[in-house]
């Protein structure tokens, strides 16, 4: 089976992100492969355990290469990197990615359920739409037999089980698997794996449909309230009071 894994690079959970000239400036921030995409990479490697016929596909700036190498170090066979640092809306992204899917003819495409940076959940759906394929969203379990896929996915009220035929777009959810760490030998091997570079022009796209006007960083100032824990009951009461009355979160 041939599998494509869409991957993105996002600021690391601990990264310090700044805004400069009204836009988010990632210069100097620690970036990482999006954790939701990592579930897709891991699942692809559990299906094709030797990594054969697994392709990472990335659409983003030059620094995306680090995330691509990470996916290759985890075990994917090769990668395609459409290099562009322009802001592209999800529909335009899906249009480009759909063309790659048509070139590569995979049976299955994994896509992260939600982007760690923008919180968008639309890419998988937009790609399925562009391809006119079925999709399974928020997938937490997966079983494939011949061309039939049995999946469990999260819905608002709980879980739902589905059975669909390939080809499919599958978006991931936490719990699908526990992604592996790349081993040192595989990190070294990944440096030699193929990354095919392409440009937006190769896919007949000049730019996105959405223009970003301004971005701001939400500034969260800590209050640094310390509660004396000598009397646990009093401490718990104080904590509840602070959360309920002051922070109004419970």
């Amino acid at each position, binding site marked *: 089976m041939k599998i494509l894994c869409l991957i993105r690079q996002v600021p690391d959970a601990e990264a*310090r992100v700044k805004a400069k000239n009204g836009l988010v400036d990632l210069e100097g921030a620690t970036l990482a492969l999006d954790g939701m995409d990592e579930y897709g990479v891991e699942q692809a490697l559990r299906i094709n355990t030797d990594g054969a016929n697994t392709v990472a596909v990335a659409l983003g700036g030059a620094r995306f290469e680090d995330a691509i*190498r990470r996916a290759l170090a985890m075990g994917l066979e090769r990668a395609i990197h459409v290099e562009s640092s322009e802001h592209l809306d999800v529909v335009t992204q899906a249009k480009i990615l759909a063309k790659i899917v048509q070139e590569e003819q995979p049976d299955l495409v994994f896509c992260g359920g939600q982007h760690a940076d923008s919180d968008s959940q639309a890419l998988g759906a937009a790609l399925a739409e562009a391809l006119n394929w079925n999709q399974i969203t928020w997938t937490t379990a997966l079983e494939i037999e011949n061309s039939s896929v049995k999946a469990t996915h999260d819905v608002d009220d709980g879980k739902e089980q589905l059975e669909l035929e390939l080809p499919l777009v599958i978006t991931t959810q936490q719990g699908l698997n526990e992604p592996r*760490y*790349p*081993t*040192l*030998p*595989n*990190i*070294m091997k990944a*440096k030699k794996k193929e990354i095919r570079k392409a440009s937006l022009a190769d896919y007949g796209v000049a730019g996105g449909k959405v223009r970003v006007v301004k971005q701001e960083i939400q500034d969260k100032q*800590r209050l*640094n309230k310390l509660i004396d824990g000598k009397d646990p009951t009093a401490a718990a009461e104080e904590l509840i009071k602070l959360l309920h009355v002051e922070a109004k979160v419970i």
Partner: protein
Amino acid sequence: MIAERPESVTSKKGGMFLISQTPPDQTHTPEDFSSDVKDIYQAVDEFVKTRVMPNMETLEAHDNALLKQILHECGDQGFFQVEVPEAYGGLDMSKTTATYVGEALAQAGGFAVAFGAHASIGMLPLVYFGSDALKAKYLEAMAAGKLIGAYCLSEPGSGSDAQAAKTRAVPSEDGSSYTISGTKMWISNGGIADIYTVFCQVMTPQGTKFSAFLIERNFPGVSTGKEEHKLGIKLSSTTQLILEDVVVPSENLLGEVGWGAKIAFNILNIGRYKLGSGGVGGSKAVLNASTKYAKERTSFGQPIANFGAIQEKLAEMCLEIYAAESLTYRVTGMIDEIADHAKSASEKLKAIETYRVEASIVKVYGTEVLAYCTDQAVQVFGGYGFSEEYPVARAYRDARINRIFEGTNEINRMIIPGELLKMGMKGEIPLMQAAQKLQAEMLEPSFSDDTDDAPLAAETRVVEGLKKAALQVAGLAALKFSNKLGEQQEILARVADIIISSFAGESALLRTQKMMASGKNADTQIAMTQVLVHDLAEKCAVWGREALSSFTEGDDLRLNLAAMKRLTKHDSVNVVALRRQIAAAVIEADGYLN
């Protein structure tokens, strides 16, 4: 002044730093790390942060089963393959890589000890001294983390004097085996290891010969003592190894009978420069924690990071780490320059051996920076620093052992001038010529006034002066005490401190100059170098005076002190303002400046 660029640049030999100048473009710095080095560091760092740190409390309570499991996982990740030859399933990477990995491990204190007790001192005796047959027997399994190793040198009655070990190995009549009995002490990984590198006295007709064997835990007669109740590195298992008439096949002898000292000291050299990066990694972790805390903790209505007394600590920690980092990777780079071209394990070992003095310098400086930074971190945290609920208390406890193991810092201070003098006597390096030249120079009325005021030109002059100050004291002491110099430990320690200071100052200086030449903004690094060199010169002046006053008097003393004053001459710099500048950068970066 030493203006000429001597032959040293091409003669890659240990100790040459003291009597030559290295051009900045020929030094090795973390800024030069390849992507391989960084990627491997990141892999280990990520593993430590996700697998070790969250389990710290359980591991510190001696959950040895979990510790062993995590070490097995490290094996699965290929972490133990870094220094193993490719023929035995290894990656055979640079010493810089292996050393930088130590930084990632250091944040986890005792885990770095458990890791190093296997991957470094546990496995490397086999890598460098094992026969092909012995490597075939054990190495692949050790590199894969399936067999965990330990290094057993100390005994209840011998530590720094390792060769006074009493454990005995009696050869069988047919030569097929040795029967070994004795007790080894302070064995890191003692309780979890599968295979022990044991140093002992082989009984031969010519007397006892200090040697080393690989001994499996499951050989009959092998047992381990109870877990030691330690001050720090509680995560690591430390026990005695008790050997009662253990029959060990002769093939498990490392190298040849009588190679014990050679094996022990070469492996210790490796452990020594790795402790430098351990010091750097551990210090960075506490500086980062202290900076974060200082920004969050308010006192008198404002974050304590606003106060000069706290800023000064953050700045000093940062610049000391910068110096330790600069000298550690300068040395590993020097080793790699030779080792990367080595055709065999023994050639690689020679590259390490030639830099044994530098390895001792790295050990002393790195571990003392760690002691300083962990102590200051507790202070920044105030009362919370004294609580085990906060991360710096463990770091403080864990740091303490570093000045003791791999040769106490006192032993290493004896090694530094001792080995340099030996190298000079043997003519390996032109130390005596340099000392004679200096004596002649000292008789001249004054130094030529160098008025170059380019950035760091003054610091370059100071560092060259400190090297000469070391030569001056060492040379005069050698003349005075001749072959009894070894008994003058207080003088030797001061000479060592001046040598260490000159190397630390020079390493930071060269790195900053290289950074400036690359066009990178090095404002903070320049400030750190200025404060560092200034303070080192102040300290060296004191050490120099104390040493000279201890063995010369009258007119000789006056002359020698005047020379020392000239050699440690340095301008006043505004260290208060410079430290504020450094602290501002640390606070902005949330910790160490990467």
